[in-house]
């Protein structure tokens, strides 16, 4: 049984042209993702993790950003070479996104219902009863009273509910891969836990592939099969979550793990990331 990789990234390099010259945002990044599996991309700000994620469907603004080299293969098709209509079909229908700030990621002048219906009509025109489908999606993500809630405007929902609504919208297109870019960073801790639990459940129930992008290595436990650690545009460590977390090879990974505060620990000061290893490169 050959499990074709759903997503394959080969030596991807992306550069940004700024007023100060070109910035190498992503350098020679390679990884792959099988159907139904999950990958965590962990790194600090500026590591290139978001840029990598957005490049999967060419969501980066192409004037400042440029593909320098490498390839992105989604179900065997090369994304950089895709025709515009095919790309638009993949967006949402093949790869769906949820973003960091749910409050600004939803259009404030349209109802939840209208925004989800738009997605369904675009990617699943065969659906006859769109409203019923919307209710079903909202239910799936744990929103109570969806028949009433769907007529609300985004600002009427709490942060956690907005994020759930975004997840529902992403799922309504039945994507094969969900990319979650820092989905819980803007939410408070208790809601964070809920959303993560939701993602865990969805992934199990729908057998959907998931890429979770975060700077917080502590949240990926139990959720992601593999982990890629990025630093300054490069992947410094890549492998099964268990083995990486238990036995980190790269000094940066070690530093990241060490920073996670442990309950009951007796240290008085929180650890920061130690960059001393940079000097020895």
């Amino acid at each position, binding site marked *: 049984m050959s499990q074709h990789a759903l997503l394959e990234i080969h030596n991807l390099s992306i550069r940004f042209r700024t*007023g100060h010259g070109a910035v190498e945002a992503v350098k020679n990044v390679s990884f792959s993702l099988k159907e139904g599996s999950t990958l965590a991309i962990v790194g600090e700000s*500026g590591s*290139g993790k978001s840029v990598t994620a957005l490049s999967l469907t060419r969501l980066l*603004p192409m004037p400042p950003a440029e593909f320098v080299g490498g390839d992105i293969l989604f179900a065997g098709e090369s994304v950089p070479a895709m025709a515009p209509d095919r790309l638009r079909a993949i967006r949402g229908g093949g790869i769906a996104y949820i973003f960091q700030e749910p409050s600004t990621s939803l259009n404030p002048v349209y109802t939840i219902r209208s925004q989800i219906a738009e997605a369904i009509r675009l990617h699943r025109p065969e659906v006859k009863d769109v409203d019923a489908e919307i209710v079903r999606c909202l239910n799936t993500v744990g929103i109570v009273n969806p028949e009433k809630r769907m007529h609300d405007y985004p600002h009427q929902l709490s942060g956690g509910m907005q994020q759930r609504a975004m997840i529902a919208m992403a799922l309504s297109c039945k994507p094969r891969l969900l990319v979650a870019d820092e989905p819980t960073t803007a939410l408070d801790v208790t809601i964070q836990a809920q959303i993560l639990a939701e993602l865990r459940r969805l992934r199990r129930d729908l057998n959907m592939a998931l890429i979770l992008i975060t700077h917080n290595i502590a949240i990926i436990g139990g959720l992601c099969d593999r982990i890629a650690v990025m630093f300054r545009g490069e992947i410094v460590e890549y492998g099964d979550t268990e083995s990486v977390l238990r036995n980190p090879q790269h000094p940066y990974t070690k530093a990241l793990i060490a920073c996670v505060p442990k309950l009951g620990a007796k240290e008085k000061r929180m650890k920061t990331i130690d960059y001393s290893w940079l000097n020895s490169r």
Partner: protein
Amino acid sequence: MTAAPPLPSRNATASSGPGRRSLARFRKNPVGVTAAAIVGLLFLVALVTGIGACFGVYFPYDPNATNLAQKLRAPDAAHWLGTDNLGRDVLSRLLNGSYISLTVGFIAVAVSLSIGVAVGAVSGYLGGWVDNVLMRIVDAILCFPTFFLILTAVALLGPSIINIIVIIGLVSWTGTARLVRAEFLTLRESEYVRAARTLGQRSPAIIFRHILPNAAAPIIVTAVIGIPDAILTEAGLSFLGFGVQPPQATWGNIISDGKTYFLDAWWLIVFPGLAIFVAALSFYLAGDALRQAAESRSERK
């Protein structure tokens, strides 16, 4: 759009200041550069004719020299832009009027800028009820049709150059005030103002050394765009007879004088109007190009 923040470069370039960068960007804009060139030309002309007028030197003819035998002549070799109903050469009057128009424009803007910056700074920095009161006053003034208010005031106080300048300035400061206030409100809470405060700097110092330099760009742009507004207002006033009085020529009153003869002497209307139009357009385009150059600085992260 999440763009990767630039990597911290080891040898951080002591980059040219924001002013110089904006200037470089401005230079690349062909429209802006042409407009600025025209503005420069206008300046030169105004300066030269203004100085000349002080010494009684005029080009090509004395703008006030009447010559009834030559009245209402169409543009020809002797009078490139024709003559008016008193035989005065239109070109000379146009050139002579240029320094009036530009002077009024400039000083009026200077007045309005001073008031606007002061009010905006106080309002934005102090906040609270001071801000509220000042902004209500701004709102009230904005309800008045500016030109009508200016016309009323000038008509009642007498149309001298000083009056016109001061009145235009007194009525148009509101835009600057709002802008400056907005800048102050955002910058007041910014990191480096907080840092300055924690370091013990006192308020006036904070205002001048930290906030104003950042607010400088939009203020300059407003000033450049305010000049053609003032020029157009002055022209309008002159046209109605409430601007600078004859026999002193201004672009507006050449048209006003020529109103009665317009059916036969189109040049009395077309040329001065063209002058006003070109001057105003150049200032506007130059100002807009400046604004674009300055803005892109703050957009790049």
